[in-house]
């Protein structure tokens, strides 16, 4: 009943009119008028093709769009999708939009979708990103079928990516999540995922909504909750992940959403991850990961310079976070030339673990700890780019696997740091 208090009366009235559903598609938006029309069209096509007999609803949780996004979601007619697919839904397909706040907050958006799913008793749900311009109708089936037909509780995606895309995922989030929680989830933090109604309801009841972070990284919390709650998880290959243009300034928010969320989850999840050794693969539909090798122009020099500047300028900050030996080693490699520069996997893992332990001890402001990780990540990214300049897809995969094993091998070091709280 607690959820009813934050949902608007109008939204509740619309949900009551819908009744119960089998499939729920959640669409969090904020000023996505340019892409939302085609995405809703694709969603409708996906439902028509994959679930023509099921009762389905699209729930748009809008964070105060001023470009008419919400109207576009509710305005797209089912008839728009029929000529292309030549299919007909046997049930009414509802589209409901609600404005949850005047500014976007991913946590509130997901909470709204989960509350709607619980009220509508949805069996299988999927959340899609309005920024995924290359979304295909098949994505719905790929994310929903394992839940609807096979009884999985969470379906995370895998993508076809360029070997240098998503470096934060491949160099930190994937290997660390895998080492700590023991499951090889490629995309633990993704804007697209499918889940069961029962897991959604369970997560909705967790006390994660009022921690002052406005839901930053809530998608990762969702995945971690599925792992710690021992829900059935699988992966589904969706295809190519479209390239979202980002600036260098996006790195710190990305670190907050991934590393920050992961570090903050380690304390409540200690009893789970401290018992885990090694890692297990997940049931996966399609490829585990596909790598694109197209040439990509990257300013490596800038990454290298920002690493060295960070090491020099943030020495006093690093002294609070890192052990003297790790800091000395980082200072040594910061002085090396471009050709000799190498940020080895072992040092990177030790760096990340020491950051995680310092985060837990709050040696300085936790947000400052996350910000201080950015220049070091740039150094690691530089090494990854150099190591894999001419690497084949298999070589890249082997390098990532090597890093993952290093994270697993050094896990006792994190436990040792964790236990030496004083």
């Amino acid at each position, binding site marked *: 009943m607690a959820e009813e208090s934050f949902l608007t009366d109008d939204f509740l009235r619309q949900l009551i009119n819908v009744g119960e559903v089998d499939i729920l598609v959640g669409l969090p938006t904020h000023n996505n008028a340019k892409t939302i029309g085609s995405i809703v069209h694709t969603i409708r096509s996906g439902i028509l093709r994959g679930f023509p007999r099921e009762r389905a609803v699209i729930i748009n949780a809008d964070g105060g769009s001023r470009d008419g996004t919400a109207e576009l979601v509710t305005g797209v007619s089912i008839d728009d999708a029929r000529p292309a697919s030549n299919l007909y839904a046997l049930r009414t397909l509802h589209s409901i939009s609600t404005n949850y706040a005047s500014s976007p907050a991913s946590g509130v958006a997901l909470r709204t979708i989960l509350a709607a799913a619980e009220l509508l008793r949805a069996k299988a749900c999927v959340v899609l990103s309005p920024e995924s311009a290359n979304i295909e109708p098949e994505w719905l089936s790929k994310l929903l079928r394992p839940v609807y037909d096979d009884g999985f509780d969470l379906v995370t995606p895998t993508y076809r990516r360029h070997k240098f895309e998503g470096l934060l995922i491949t160099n930190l989030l994937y290997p660390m999540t895998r080492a700590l929680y023991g499951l090889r989830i490629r995309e633990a933090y993704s804007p697209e995922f499918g889940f069961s109604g029962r897991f959604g309801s369970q997560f909705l009841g967790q006390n994660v909504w009022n921690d002052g972070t406005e839901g930053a990284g809530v998608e990762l919390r969702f995945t971690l909750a599925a792992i710690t709650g021992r829900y059935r998880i699988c992966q589904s290959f969706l295809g190519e992940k479209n390239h979202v243009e980002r600036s260098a300034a996006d790195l710190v928010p990305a670190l907050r959403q991934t590393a920050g969320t992961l570090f903050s989850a380690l304390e409540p999840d200690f009893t789970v991850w401290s018992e885990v050794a090694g890692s297990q693969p997940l049931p996966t539909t399609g490829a585990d990961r596909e790598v694109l090798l197209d040439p990509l122009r*990257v300013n490596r020099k800038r990454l290298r310079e920002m690493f060295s500047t*960070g090491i020099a*300028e943030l020495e006093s*900050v690093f002294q609070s976070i890192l052990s003297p030996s790790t800091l000395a080693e980082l200072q040594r490699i910061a002085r090396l030339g471009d050709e000799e520069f190498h940020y080895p996997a072992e040092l990177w893992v030790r760096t990340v673990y020491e950051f995680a332990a310092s985060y837990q001890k709050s040696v*300085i402001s936790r947000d400052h700890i996350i910000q201080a990780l950015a220049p070091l*990540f740039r150094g690691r990214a530089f090494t990854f780019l150099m190591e894999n300049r001419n690497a084949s897809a298999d070589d890249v995969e082997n390098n990532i696997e090597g890093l993952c094993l290093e994270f697993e091998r050094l896990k006792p070091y994190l436990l040792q740091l964790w236990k030496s709280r004083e």
Partner: protein
Amino acid sequence: MREMIISELSQALHEIARNFAHFLPRLIVMLILAFAGWVIAYVVKAVLRSILRLIKFDKLSENAGASQLLSKAALPSATELLSRFVFWVTWLGFILLGVQVLGILGLQEQTARFFLFLPRLFVAMFILFLGLLGASFFSRAALLAAVNANVPSPRVLSLALRSIIIVFVLSIFFEELGLAEQTMLVAFGIAFGALMLGLAIAFGMGGRDLAKRFLEKRFVREKKTESEDELSPL
């Protein structure tokens, strides 16, 4: 004549003896108060030290940058310093109470002033500590933001911000204590004005190219050629 002298002397001796008899109990009370004050102050110091250690006050002080200042001045740790400060203030308070019992003219007013000054002293100390904590936090935030935004000379920026906050906090500290209010106000005005003028001149003269590049980057949209932007971290 002789009898008169003896009588006067005797009277004087009686007077002294009476005054002494009148004063002695007060002196004993004062000594008892001073001793009791010492015991109470010692207990307060021990309890406070334990509480401060429990809440890791030294760590907080380190984060505020106060520990570094104390270390440079060859002073003990923040916990020890604050414990000793509270000990002396408490004991001094009891001694002054004892002195008041002695009934010495003029001292009573000074004692009353001391007790009226105590709350201001604690408020001033609190402001100073919070100010140092704020200066440390905001200067570190500026340093991290500048490093991650690739702004040139991030440490200078951070130091400038820290200096501004500390100057501001010190002016409030002295104003709260009521020490040389006018002097501090003028000194603050001069220091702050000089800092701002210095920054303006430095930015205007020394950083013309930098300012130009910054404004161009901020307001003129150029086609990106080769940059880190092409890499998505997620």
